[in-house]
């Protein structure tokens, strides 16, 4: 899919177009489909991360699609400094929002478990370390709540969410 876009427009333009869609306050459909389209590019940019985190606080349909989208960001954009990216992600999963923490864990799991992570020396290890630290630091009983239709569902404690992401990064059984 990203290759198909590259043949018709520069990647930066396509990304900017989808980012603009995620900011369309007049239509939640525009926001949810834009974030899914953005995830088809597979590339995590600072703007894409900001869009995902904003979607964590959006209405249920956007939040759900953002969670689906989060698992598709398997590459860090070359212009997104690795340390800066990890700092942003770690800050988000330590933040107040449980939904943002959940989304961040999905992004880290996708990034850390992708073959592309191996091309950046040490990236998988650093992601795993960040998740591991997060598991230890997370309050044991703090529950993450997500919107599902007109209901609020428990997605596990923050530590459980991070642990599940960690198991994906190391390709451990159990999920």
């Amino acid at each position, binding site marked *: 899919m990203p290759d*198909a*876009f590259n*043949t*018709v*427009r520069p990647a930066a333009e*396509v990304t900017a*177009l989808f980012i*603009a*869609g*995620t*900011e*369309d*306050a*007049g*239509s939640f*459909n*525009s*926001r949810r489909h834009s974030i899914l389209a953005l995830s088809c590019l597979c590339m995590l940019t600072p703007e894409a991360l900001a869009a995902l985190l*904003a*979607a964590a*606080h*959006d209405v249920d349909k956007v939040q759900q699609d953002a969670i689906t989208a989060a698992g598709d960001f398997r590459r860090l954009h070359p212009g997104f400094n690795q340390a800066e990216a990890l700092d942003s992600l770690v800050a988000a999963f330590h933040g107040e929002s449980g939904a943002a923490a959940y989304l961040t864990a999905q992004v880290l799991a996708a990034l850390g478990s992708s073959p592309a992570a191996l091309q950046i020396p040490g990236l998988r290890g650093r992601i795993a370390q960040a998740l591991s630290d997060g598991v230890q630091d997370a309050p044991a009983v703090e529950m993450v709540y997500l919107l599902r239709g007109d209901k609020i569902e428990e997605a596990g404690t923050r530590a459980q969410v991070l642990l599940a992401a960690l198991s994906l990064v190391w390709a451990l059984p159990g999920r």
Partner: protein
Amino acid sequence: MSLLESASWLLRELEVSASWLLRKSEQAEIPHEALSEHLLVLSQADDGRVQAAALAALGHWREESGAILPALLALSPMASARAAYLAARGKDDEPVIQVKAILQSYAPQTEAVAALTRLWVMQQRAERKTMSLTTLWSVLGSAQVTVMPGDLLPALLQAATDNDVWYDYHESIVRLIQELVQEEEGLLADLLAALQTALDEGYGGCPPAASPWRGWPPAPQSCPTPSTPSARRPR
């Protein structure tokens, strides 16, 4: 009436509010007859934006009394497209046949192809089927509507453009567009250009780039009132 005619951007608000009222109202608390008379007059206004808003509202009529559909069909391709919207929800086959015949005479105009597509996809939906692109081409051929792939894309986009809650009808159109773009790779650029245009136009003629709503969550301000009515564009 005179205010609506002179301040055409107000029609956008009328379209939205009248449309939702008509869709939501189970009981006939709305003065349907009086409203339809006004809207039918406005649907023939000189200003295209007034026409479009009035027609869009008419397309949402819940109970078609038999006056609106013929009136719409006697107007323009755009009016017939709204008639298709109305007829597609009806249970009676006769209006659908009538609308299709009129639309076929307007084809391959984009509005007409879009409206025909809506009718066909809705018919398939009623039979719990999903229309494929192959079937659509076949149906277009049977209806003697000749349309090029590059012209079908805007028609499909238009067929999916409404103010309804997103549902499986829209998904069906999306699948058709996906198939079309996969078959005709050159259309991907057109699709991206259409997205750009849609985002630039924004919702209700309030362009996101110029709007305090830009960004999420939106700032607690309302859409700025344009200095002149002409600054606002219909969707």
